[in-house]
């Protein structure tokens, strides 16, 4: 049976660890010929330059060739072709499909149609599992462990798919503590809190940054978007509360690292960039190694 990666929960804890181990290998040996003679379709039905280049770099470093498109405008979608037909056709050409699509559930559907494995590079607001794995790799690299960590998630915890997936994945490890910092409009949804309660994992909710940030091992920042608020006055009230500034990191633990899926707008002040606790740019580089690992695992190359 082919191995797709559509949702983060498609992988077991053993598979998370396998990917992280492989990512460490590729970080030391990024250029490998494992994909020699193979064709990978990179189908971006909506543009995402960062994710696409990260995947295409990973494929190139593995020695594979890329076909595909960078946005739906340059594909047959503009002629009205269904996703079904596009995937059926490309299955004939490629050994693996990497797909980004604006509609939720598109990746799961594509995986059902495709005769080759599908890696989800983001389906609307639903899932972006390779982001989660690179976040985990970044956490492992900076903390040396995935157990016993105090993880702060800040900003849009309601719609932010990256925080939901990271929560699900990290809840498989020993004794995490979660601290959620979000405005009333953007709280962590109940289904995720219920999941933590069922697993006996502690979590705390805050409306703003407090002194307890000094307990953090990981500060995972997300963007609070204006369009998420039904009342613009509410947005104006909270928009500055969720901005991380350099001085706020003064009394934090030496091992703490600030993560962000990027692109950042203003939720991390640029004065944080010089702080050694800022990790978001390194995090992006980790994406290439993690994606090399995911591709190698998906195609059983290693």
């Amino acid at each position, binding site marked *: 049976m082919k191995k797709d990666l559509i*949702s983060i929960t498609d992988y077991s804890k053993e598979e998370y660890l396998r990917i992280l181990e492989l990512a460490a290998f590729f970080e030391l040996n990024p250029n490998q010929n494992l994909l020699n003679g193979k064709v990978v379709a990179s189908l971006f039905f909506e543009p995402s330059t960062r994710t696409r280049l990260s995947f295409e770099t990973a494929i190139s470093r593995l020695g594979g060739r890329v076909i595909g498109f960078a946005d739906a405008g340059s594909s047959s979608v503009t002629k009205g072709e*269904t*996703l*079904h037909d596009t995937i059926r056709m490309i299955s004939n050409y490629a050994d693996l499909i990497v797909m980004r*699509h*604006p*509609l*939720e*559930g*598109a990746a*799961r*559907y594509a995986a059902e149609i495709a005769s080759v494995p599908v890696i989800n590079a983001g*389906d*609307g*607001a*639903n*899932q972006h599992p390779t982001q989660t794995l690179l976040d985990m790799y970044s956490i492992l690299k900076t903390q040396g462990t995935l157990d016993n960590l105090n993880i702060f998630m800040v900003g849009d915890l309601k719609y932010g798919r990256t925080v939901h997936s990271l929560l699900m994945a990290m809840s498989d490890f020993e004794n995490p503590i979660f601290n959620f910092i979000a405005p009333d409009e953007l709280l962590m949804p109940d*289904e995720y809190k219920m999941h933590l309660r069922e697993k006996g994992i502690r979590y705390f909710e805050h409306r703003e940054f407090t002194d307890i940030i000094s307990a953090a091992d990981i500060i995972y920042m997300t963007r609070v978007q204006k369009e998420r608020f039904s009342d613009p006055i509410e947005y104006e009230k909270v928009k500055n509360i969720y901005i991380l500034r350099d001085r706020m990191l003064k009394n934090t633990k030496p091992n703490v690292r600030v993560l962000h899926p990027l692109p950042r707008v203003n939720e991390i002040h640029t004065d944080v960039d010089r702080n050694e606790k800022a990790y978001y740019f390194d995090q992006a580089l980790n994406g290439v190694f993690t994606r090399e690992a995911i591709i190698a695992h998906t195609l059983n190359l290693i």
Partner: protein
Amino acid sequence: MEENIKKKLKVSAIKDGTVIDHIPAQNLFKVISILRLDHIDNQITFGTNLESYKLGSKAIIKVSDKFFEDDEINKIALIAPHAKLNIIRNYAVTEKKEVEIPAEIRGIVRCFNPRCITNNEAITTRFAVISKSPIALKCHYCEKITDQEHLQIQ
């Protein structure tokens, strides 16, 4: 009135087959369509807008020479959760059954998420039933949860 209904039911009694009772009147035609009763040659009689203590107004369907598999009949559980089946053999009720919401639902329901691929391309919907009462269905594709309040039959 109660007497009248009883009389009427007696008149149209069937020899062998299935009587599906306690269907909410407004969902009668949906039940017919889900069970594809409009595509079979069996004799069918139905009554609707009948008085019911439980439902206010109910519908009833009698299908001659038809005995449903559980999987087949359970498809109507979402729109007729209180439906009762009487299996008739030689004019006598030989078995009574209730419908049960299955663990997985294919088709029938629309995903409430307008951004879901199933609402944008011709795909049969598929849900895991995560709660039966109140109903909560998790879309196999977009992973969003459609609850009782947002439940829409296709």
